[in-house]
């Protein structure tokens, strides 16, 4: 099981497509930095089939004014929760 980190918005970079093709069935995806723009309702369709394993970083949502715009299918975690996710998986893969 891997945790993938993504820091690009799906509106400007196509790297999210490569992430999705690479993810295993149990892998999680954590949206950080500009990646959290993908968590808003108008953009989350770029991440289909990830119920229960699509996360977004609260601090990065809040600084961007997105806290109230995050789609309900996205699990919001704070930095402490991000660290907790990395405790559960042995390896993370960062995409940019």
């Amino acid at each position, binding site marked *: 099981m891997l945790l993938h980190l993504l*820091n690009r*918005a799906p*509106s*400007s970079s196509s790297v999210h497509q490569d992430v999705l093709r690479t993810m295993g069935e149990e892998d999680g995806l954590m949206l950080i*930095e*500009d990646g959290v*723009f993908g968590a*808003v*309702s*108008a*953009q989350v369709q770029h991440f289909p089939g990830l119920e229960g394993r699509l996360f977004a970083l609260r*601090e*990065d949502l*809040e*600084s*961007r*004014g*997105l*806290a*109230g*715009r995050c789609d309900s299918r996205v699990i919001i975690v704070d930095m402490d929760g991000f660290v907790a996710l990395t405790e559960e998986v042995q390896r993370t893969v960062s995409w940019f």
Partner: protein
Amino acid sequence: MSEITEASHGDLLVMLRHAPHGGLWLREALDLALVGAAFGQSVSLLLMGDGVWALLQGQGSGPLGQKGSQSTFEMLEMYDIERLYVDVDSLAARGLTRDDLLLPVIEVSTPELSTVLAGHRQIFNF
């Protein structure tokens, strides 16, 4: 629409295409616009692509306490930036409308974009 054709004659157009907080593009672009205004140039901004996020209401200060872009945008009014254009297609693609934005803007449709660029003597695209 007619507003764009007749009003778009300025010295300096700064295009903002990068999202706030993820990097320094937006800040360094706004710095240039402010300097232009301080030097007495007629300055316009055009927000496009992920740059439209820069005007979203409710932003906080960035990680580790660095300043957000909100205070800079509020300075724009003081410095008399003449026009704040926003690409409506970029807004719509992100589920945004002008009501979500911090400041009043001039909405630009795709066919009008080239007119905005053509109307400025100097263009910086960040």
